[in-house]
């Protein structure tokens, strides 16, 4: 019996030893503690890449937001819009369904934006806790960059979905499910964040990192703050479903214009950026030089093998050729009326709107309804894209011209057209490098009144930014979304039937391939061109210049929008996120 007792004692001993409290603790390996990551600049930088990684996810900015946000407007439309009931069309024609198959997936931009936000929130907490950002400029810059990136995401969330959940702290079990927050709350936080970020960030070329447009600098933080201020002080569809201004006195129009004005002037006066030649801006972009201090202020730094800019928005190559191993482009296209909005001497037209596509390495005229954004061209790239799915071009998120025009707009509102005129003139002068007299006469007209100057800004931003997907948000904040779409509808119909100002345009275009065996020369795109002259010029080919096709299910103009745009200024939150929101989210603001 004593043996048994002995055994029991031994066993009990073993048991006690092995049941020590920490026997079941298993710490994470292959990881580092936050205190190490966020106090070491070289490591902390990796949290910036973590946020950009979310941008590059399949259905994030890369595959969905960049291509589907911003259409349809008077400047940019979805290429297949005439099939009005397709899922892509429904994202663009103000009739979006909550179960849209393009978007209603759990890895959609909505989810990946919040993933980026969570990564930013964790990094911000880490940097503020362990980073000594006041004394360590490098960590300060990282904090500034992450605050700015978070604002970028929120800005696009609000543009896409209106009022969205506000998450500015890492998630906890209490905050897993949050309802939509009034966007004013978010705006105020972002305005404060960006103000702080600007104090932490160097100007372009002010530090090693800011020599590249792929890293956030002070000018971009300020520019983004101006953009957000204009949005916060502008119109939009609110949670109650109505289109109105904010009622929050902190976000009053004057205050917001003041922020925009001050930020823009800071940037302009810093002299760290400049206006390049208009074509040069986009040749620089496509050549992927990445140099800061020119016009580009910040670009989403997609690597060469990730991102779909030309793929979705560029000039289409219907076959692979020496410029690209990818036969893509033109998911979105310019609104056809834009070709006729430019003055014939405006150098921006031929850069922005390209009436041909490439087949077999040769430019071939496309059609009136299917022109392309010439700002994104495989043929301007320094490398040949080999990926079948991505082109890797950076997304030009903001450029100096935007700052200049925001300055003009804000100063006009606050100080009147005379004070604002120099800024509009900067842009106008660049657009007409060989016709200064046209600039002078235009400026005289524009500065006639505050209203006429505002209208000039509205027009100028369309001409300047076609293809850059800024228009929709601009129209919304000006409360011109419905108006401009209705105008565009009329113009499209007139253009197709050659009525109104389009009455004398030729019905056909006349073209030939030049001796270099790839460039196409086209006659018939300008006011003043006629079929009679076209026929006489000896071109080898011609084609009817129309936007309708035999397979059309709707006319181009009817396809622009199918419901009142002002009642559907935003996309609904997709069903999959409604379903997994524990009842906190709905789309009642859109009556969906």
């Amino acid at each position: 019996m004593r043996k048994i007792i002995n055994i029991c004692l031994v066993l009990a001993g073993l048991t006690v030893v092995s049941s020590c409290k920490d026997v079941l603790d298993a710490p994470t390996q292959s990881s580092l503690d936050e205190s190490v990551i966020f106090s070491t600049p070289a490591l902390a930088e990796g949290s910036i890449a973590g946020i950009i990684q979310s941008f590059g996810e399949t259905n994030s900015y890369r595959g969905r937001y960049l291509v589907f946000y911003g259409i349809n407007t008077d400047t940019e439309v979805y290429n297949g819009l005439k099939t009005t009931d397709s899922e892509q069309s429904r994202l663009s024609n103000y009739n979006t369904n909550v179960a849209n198959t393009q978007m209603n997936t759990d890895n959609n931009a909505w989810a990946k934006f919040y993933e980026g936000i969570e990564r930013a929130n964790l990094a911000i907490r880490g940097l503020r806790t362990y980073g000594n950002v006041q004394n360590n400029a490098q960590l300060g810059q990282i904090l500034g960059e992450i605050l700015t990136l978070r604002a970028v995401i929120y800005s696009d969330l609000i543009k896409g979905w209106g009022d969205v959940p506000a998450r500015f702290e890492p998630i906890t079990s209490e905050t897993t499910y949050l309802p939509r927050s009034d966007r004013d709350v978010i705006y105020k936080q972002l305005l404060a964040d960006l103000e702080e970020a600007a104090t932490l960030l160097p100007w372009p070329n002010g530090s090693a990192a800011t020599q590249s447009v792929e890293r956030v600098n002070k000018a971009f933080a300020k520019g983004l703050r101006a953009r957000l201020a204009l949005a916060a002080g502008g119109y939009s569809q609110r949670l109650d479903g109505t289109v109105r201004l904010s009622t929050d006195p902190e976000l009053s129009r004057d205050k917001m214009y003041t922020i925009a004005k001050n930020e823009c002037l800071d940037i302009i006066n810093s002299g760290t950026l400049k206006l390049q030649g208009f074509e040069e801006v986009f040749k620089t972009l496509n050549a992927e030089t990445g140099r800061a201090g020119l016009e580009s202020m910040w670009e989403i730094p997609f690597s060469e093998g990730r991102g779909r800019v030309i793929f979705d928005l560029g000039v289409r190559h219907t076959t692979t050729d020496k410029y690209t191993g990818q036969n893509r482009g033109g998911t979105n296209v310019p609104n056809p009326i834009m070709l006729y909005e430019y003055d014939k001497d405006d150098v921006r037209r031929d850069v922005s709107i390209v009436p041909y596509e490439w087949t077999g390495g040769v430019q071939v005229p496309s059609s009136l309804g299917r022109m392309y954004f010439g700002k994104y061209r495989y043929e301007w790239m320094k490398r040949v894209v080999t990926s079948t799915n991505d082109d890797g071009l950076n997304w030009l998120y903001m450029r100096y011209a935007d700052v200049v025009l925001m300055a003009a707009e804000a100063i006009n509102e606050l100080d009147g057209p005379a004070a604002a005129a120099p800024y509009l003139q900067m842009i106008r002068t660049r657009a007409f490098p060989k016709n200064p007299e046209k600039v002078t006469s235009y400026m005289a007209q524009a500065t006639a009144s505050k209203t006429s100057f505002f209208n000039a800004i509205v027009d100028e931003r369309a001409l300047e930014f076609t293809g850059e997907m800024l228009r929709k948000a601009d129209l919304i904040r000006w409360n011109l979304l419905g108006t401009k779409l209705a105008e565009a509808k009329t113009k499209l119909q007139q253009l197709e039937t050659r009525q109104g100002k389009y009455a004398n345009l030729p019905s056909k275009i006349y073209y030939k391939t030049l001796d270099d065996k790839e460039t196409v020369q086209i006659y018939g795109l300008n006011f003043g061109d006629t079929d009679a002259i076209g026929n006489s010029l000896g071109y080898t080919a011609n084609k009817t210049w129309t936007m309708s096709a035999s397979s059309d299910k709707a006319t181009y103009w009817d396809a622009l929008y199918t419901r009142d745009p002002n009642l559907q200024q935003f996309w609904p939150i997709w069903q999959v996120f409604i379903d997994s929101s524990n009842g906190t989210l709905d789309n009642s603001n859109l009556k969906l």
Partner: protein
Amino acid sequence: MKKVLLVVTFLCSFLFAAIAQTKQITGNVRDKSGEALIGVSVTVKGTKQGASTDINGNFKLSVPTSSQVLVLNYVGFKTKEVNIAGQTNVKVTLDEDVTSLDEVVVIGYGTVKKKDLTGAVAQVSADVITAAPVSSAVEAITGRIPGVQISTTEGSPDAEMTVRVRGGGSITGSNAPLYIVDGFPVNSISDIAPSDIESIDVLKDASSTAIYGSRGANGVIMVTTKNSKSGTTSIGFTSFTGIKELANRLDVLTPQDYAYWQYERALLDGEVKDYTKYFGNFQDIDMYSNVRANDWQDIVFGRTGSTYNQNLNISGGSEKTKFSLSHSFVKEKAIMLYSGFERQNLNFKFNHKLYNKLTLDFGARYSNTKTEGGGANEQREISSADSRLKFAMIYPSIPVNGLTNSTETDPDFSLFSPLVALTDNDQYIHRKTYNLNGALNWDIIKDLRFRTEIGYDGYRNDQDRFYGQSTYYVQNVPAAANQGDPAIIFTNTNRNSFRNTNTLNYDFGKLLASKDHSLTALLGQEYIKTEEGILTTTVHGLPSTFTFTNARSLSTQGQANSIDNNFSVDDILLSYFGRVNYNFKGKYLLTGTFRADGSSKFKDGNRWGYFPSASAAWRLSDEAFMEDAKTWLSDLKIRASYGKAGNNGIPSGQMVQSFLNSTTTWVNGANNFWAPSKTMANPDLKWETTTTKNLGLDISLFKTRLNATFDFYTNNTNDLLIEYPVSGTGYDFQYRNLGETKNRGIEFSANWNALKKKNFELAFSANIAFNKNEVVSLGGLDVRGTSGWASSEVGYDYLVQEGASIGRIYGYVSDGRYEVADFSSYDAGKARWILNSDVANASTVVGTVRPGTMKLKDLNGDGIVDATDRAVIGNTNPKHTGGFSVNSKIYNFDVAAYFNWSFGNDIYNANKIEYTSTSKYSSRNMISTMATGQRWTNLRPDGTISNDGAELTSMNANTTLWSPYMSRYVLSDWAVEDGSFLRLGTVTLGYTVPVSLASKLKMKTLRVYASGYNLLLLTNYSGFDPEVSTRRRTNLTPGVDYSAYPKSKMYVFGLNVSF
């Protein structure tokens, strides 16, 4: 190996002791019918001395005069002890061991006689396992155990087998049972040689699994490997070799039909130059009528494979020492080019009585497996575009200028030569597992035994995966500079487990006053720790000429994209358990178990799970009132049990949100980034618990000639560990305890020894299991599964909802095709057909609608068929599964046939969708389901598209299917097929050489046999094989047939010898 033998020999000789005074004894051993038994082991009880009988059944033995008893052992007969006091010659008759009631069944931390079982435990013995000529034990027991559904997911060597015990309760988590090999929990038993296995026992209800508490919820499969039974020397050698060939093939279009269809497709697409560019003018289409077609299936899968399998087993020892050493070798050349399999196993078991009260057990197991070839798909794929089977199916069967002779594929075609697809997706896996187990048993006092076990399990898996120039991976994943150049990824997984178990067994028999009572108790404690690390080395930008072989050995020619040495969080389990068995007169049996498990996967407070169970059995046949039935009723027992078992089958480290560092090729200026895991931490996780109620009946009739077992069960799984979608919060998933599932079922098995005559035996056995799965609650959530075989074209295609089962397929309902009558007119100006206003338009799903286009049902009646018109269109759960076998012996010949079936399950035939529709692609071949005469045609003989309603109607009077021209792949119930099947798994004809002859060759037994595997398959399924499941990355998408490696038939010839 030599070394081991030397050591063993040394040990054995060391143990032979001096011989005392002896006497000579002779004897003769026969069976009941008077037939001499040859090779019966005769040992003197209490000593190591022994002999065996000769061909006349005679033996001769020197016996110490002090010895009184001989022990006779013979396979298939009951062991007999013979008193030899005062005798020098004995005649012994051995009884055949027809009763299975005395068989010992392995249960957790012990064994129990089958007749004393109170829980639901099923056993498969060695002879069944080795009857099938396959290299995997799991494959060999397919259809043998009721309630254990085993599916070989595809035909590749080393293919994964899914094993489900009673359906499985988890939704997103693993439903794999717990595998215990000789007491050690392992991840898989595929590396164990079937011939090394003594028995496989499956614990099915909680009363038997609760002793394994944690992880017992999905059943426990216990494998016991062989050891010497008697201690007499025996050498066995088995070997078989055979050939394998493709079991089934699908016809594709003839070259002319292919060209003809490409022409129609090009016209429908409005781009006739897509045809003329590759195929010439339509007028010349006749030239395709006599072109010889490449049979790609034959080229890729058609070779004659081979299999060679051998096993050598040496066992022996003495009264004090027993050992067994075996070596197995398997080599297979698979039917697919460049694929093969090779495995070496070494198994050594040893036990020795150190002292009177102290015995030592030792076991060592080693396996070394090499798998060549990339197979036809993979679970951790980069893109389904790299799945291989389609190349062999829909790549043009004839040379097409510009497509088949071009190194650059047209994106609208997007296929490469099937041979290129194979070499560009090549793979080599080298896996080594080693297991060492030592145990000491100490009989502290009489009836009290202490056992301590220490074990180590090592797992090393080296996977070299090559991506050639044609793969999606190299075209898209590497940084731009390296895109298009070959890449290789080396993944080295190291896993080590350490285990210590201490148990105390006590038999209270002596303390109890009456012999009618029996009471035994077990107390134990266990500690298991598992460490895992994975080193992944990704090399991009290898020279474009590099093959797999070059890439493996010259990886420095490329650029290291990333070297990721990732250590997982350790998985630690600490447990205490106990069991009490009580029975009264063998009539009333009671078992109670309790286990407490602490897991490192949960936080303090939720860490410990407690799993009690109780079961009882009543042997009616022993009751007095059943006395009259004794003549025919050998045994009748009713069992009932209730218990809980747990599951912690989630990845370690879910409690804390830690930062992970990962590589990226997406961000300029960075090659790695810090981010939390995409799975949100959940510190509140706790054990998933399954409660099992089981009611069973064991009956044995006619002197145990007919044995049957019934079981009825209900398993409720609560606090399911679900990978819950939380996208939109910042994370993709979070593990949560949520919801409840239920499995209910009936199992029945029987075996009947119909005849047992001297020269004729006939036995049948059969089993069947019904299981019904239901998701009781899911917190109001629907869980969607996406198989993803068509990238994003199909969307989610599985739906789990409350009140229904898991594994339901979700898609459109086919409504045939649009007939001419569905259209009001043809608008020649706009070149389109106008639908009648009452006919739903499916154009957003199938593309532009015209007569002949696939038609889908408009379920919500809004006139448009879109994503909202989908419904549940199939259920992959079988209504019942089972198997039956026939065994017969006629003189020296033996015949056996094993069948298994599955009934009532649906298969999602994704292959069929891909092989019968164009999606966005051009120039692809199709299977003959869509041949001319079957498919709708729009093409007039003169090579123009008809838009004349009457003409189209008459042209298609005899066609039944729609036009394959579609804008994308569409999942409709047409692609959901009945997957019921009956398979003749194994059929064997053997001949045992008469002992008289064998003994002249110095052999105890010699048997030769011929065997066929998978020779017959009865099914209505139109694909390669209905036993398939290729999209296994999540548990949500079972039963998808996409790019499965085709199965083979096998003919083998084999030999079993023992000395």
